[in-house]
């Protein structure tokens, strides 16, 4: 069976990397003694896949992973059993069985909501700041790429939405994944470049709140039946 699980990676584990998170989940799965499916070959691996890596330092409140099992287990039992085997800082929120024709997380997740804890002068009118920022035609930044040339990109079309969540906390809905990926740190840079009174905050001020499949203007959780094409 295929399981898709939603989980959070919280403060105590904000500093572990994507690969370390994978290892942590793998070992927790083994401790929970689930009927795990393994890859074939000399070096068998648990069939576990996560979606877009969360940067070291960031908290994630609606992360996902897929897992293949050799036999059926109750998704609720899966969540509760796994929660007893993960260290403080990981919490399985919900797991659901998904059909075979639902695409992988990597393939379908194309948007994410990030909140950024902003720092600026108290007198700033946040609402108009946000309005002005979003009114721009283009928001260009220089993207630094590992072992590749820097590239100029326009962030504006990849910012789907920006709302003021509460005082100093801005909520961005951004494009992520292969069809266009914005790093929230690039947003911070762009904001600072545009308006010097907005400070460049560190990565720990960012939370990935949720991840969605965006189809036209609708946002779906990655396990909704509509996505599998059955209906």
């Amino acid at each position, binding site marked *: 069976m295929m399981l898709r699980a939603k989980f959070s990676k919280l*403060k105590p584990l904000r*500093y572990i990397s994507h690969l*370390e998170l994978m290892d942590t989940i793998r070992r*927790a799965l*083994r401790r929970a003694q689930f009927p795990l499916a*393994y890859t074939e070959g000399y070096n068998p691996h648990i069939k576990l896949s996560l979606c877009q890596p969360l940067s*070291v330092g960031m908290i994630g409140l609606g992360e996902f992973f897929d897992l293949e099992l050799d036999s059926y287990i109750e998704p609720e039992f899966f969540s509760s059993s796994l929660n007893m085997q*993960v*260290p403080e800082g990981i919490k399985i929120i919900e797991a659901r069985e998904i059909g075979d024709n639902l695409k992988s997380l990597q393939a379908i997740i194309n948007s994410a909501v990030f909140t950024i804890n902003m720092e600026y002068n108290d007198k700033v009118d946040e609402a108009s700041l946000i309005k002005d920022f979003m009114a721009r035609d283009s928001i260009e930044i220089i993207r630094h790429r590992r072992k590749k040339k820097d590239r100029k990109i326009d962030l504006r079309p990849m910012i789907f939405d920006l709302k003021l969540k509460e005082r100093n906390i801005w909520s961005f809905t951004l494009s992520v994944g292969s069809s266009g990926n914005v790093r929230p740190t690039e947003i911070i840079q762009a904001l600072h470049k545009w308006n010097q009174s907005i400070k460049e905050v560190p990565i720990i001020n960012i939370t990935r709140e949720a991840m969605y499949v965006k189809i036209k203007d609708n946002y779906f959780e990655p396990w909704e039946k509509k996505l599998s094409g059955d209906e």
Partner: protein
Amino acid sequence: MSIAEKLDKMLYQVSNPVRYIGNEWNQIKKEWTNSHVKILLTFPDVYEIGMSHLGLKILYHRLNEEDKIICERTYAPWFDMEELMRREDIPLYSLETKAPASEFDIIGFSLQYEMSYTTIINMINLAGIPVYSHERSEEDPLIISGGSTVYNPEPLADFFDLFFIGEAESGLINLVNKYRKLKDKGLKRKEILFELNKLPGVYVPSLYSVDYDDKGRINSIVSKEDGVKERIKRQVITDLDNSFYPTDFIVPYMDIVHNRAVLEVLRGCTRGCRFCAAGMTYRPVRERKINTLIDMADKILQSTGYEELSLSSLSTVDYSDIERLVKIMAERYREDKISISLSSLRVDEFSVKLAKEVQKVRKTGLTFAPEAGTQRLRNVINKGVNEKDLYQAVKSAFTAGWSRIKLYYMMGLPSETDTDLEGIAKMSKKVLDMGRKLKKTKRGIKVSVSVSTFIPKPFTPFQWVEMNSQEEIIKKQDLLRKVLRGRGLQFSWNDPELSLMESILARGDRRLSGVIYQAWKQGSKFDGWNECFDFELWNKAFNDNELDYRDYLRKRDFDEILPWSHIYTGVTDEFLKKEYEKSLKGELTKDCRESHCHNGCDVCYGLGASMELVGGTNDAQG
């Protein structure tokens, strides 16, 4: 802001922040109360190295078994983290509760490598505790240590309040309990140390004085007061099979050096290689029963979720019933896709057969240690291996599918000549040729030849011999580089200055405390890391202390009082001398397992212990 809050807010600024967060699966976090004795165990290197050390894991879990003891961990912060800590006023802290190191009652360092000594000083300083023991006040923790280089603790004598000599699983508990009683009685630090020194294996260096002549040779090592024992006896665990072994190992997030479940199959080694300190100071050999090992392995794998199990010891292949053990383990965990690894292979066909049994993936390569390039020299060091053994082992490795072989050798061994060094090249090239012929290809066949520089270590038959000079080492390495050239061969060697410094500290005396202090003051730390080591700083530190480092490389006389002569490891001086003399004649000494104790090392008699070869004696399931 508390330390925990500061870390949460600031760790993104450093490399590998995961080293500093703790909170791993199976860590033990207890509520602090006044009635607890708090112990901080530490390893003077970065997290991924310190967390790989088995001895410290055993002690961590053993101490925490006790209701009235809290044991937590810390490791050395890397340069960027240390800078952050000093800038933000974060003292050395424990991973479990993020408590400042100075709030613990006892801080215990693991001594595994001479080149970590400056890192120790740095860590004590980072804890905000005076680095010299005589400067510590009543409020400061006791700073103690033990481990495999503790048998010559003298270079560290000025920094540590006490050393524990030998295996500490049970002795450390006694020490802590006695400490609690003395503290409760209201005794002062000095009085407490005096009383603790009465415990077996406990050595309080400040209670002993060392007197030197004008040439720097030791005149005498004497206890300063009545009631201070003359010599300190190494402690060993008897009945290893029934002794404590943890099964709930901490599972790190980081990919540490040895990131797997570790099963200590046996302790000690019976081979008696004359250069090997561990082979002498972990005597006698003691095994665990197969059933005990199966039971432990089950529990460890269940509680950790590890996907690899290492059968670990100084020489696992020597386990009495190793074939059956390996077979049982491989079969038992096949379904759970757990791979089994052997920590060290002997140079023979049998070892390869075992490796074949467990290693399904043949890409990592196999390692053998012939140690020397000619039979003559291998006899000198009592390495009971001949070329035929090696070639047979290698042949079966290539045939079984391996294509990379790693060979370990030493250079700078006593009596060595150019012929011996050329022998290293000859053997290595032959191994390469064999691989190419057997595999009928040149592609992908690789022989790595690692030649480390021999260092005479205390309590070995070679403890008296001269260390090669820097010039000699360089000359030999140049020769090796010349003869080990060619496609498919890869030669690696040690930094000559690093080896010199290691040998100086290994056989050093108390006067080196001042040198270590100066070297640290001038910026030495993480000396074991090639990129951090700066011999100039040490050289300067020697000058500042008006000592000549060359004097520590010299040959020692048989009748000389060695700096460690008040430490008694159980292996007698007579045995070591006899072994040294046999080495000069190239005479071999038999493995303990076969010699029925006719070798005369006397360790079993001296320590009230005996060989425990219980590996093959019981009815295993499977």
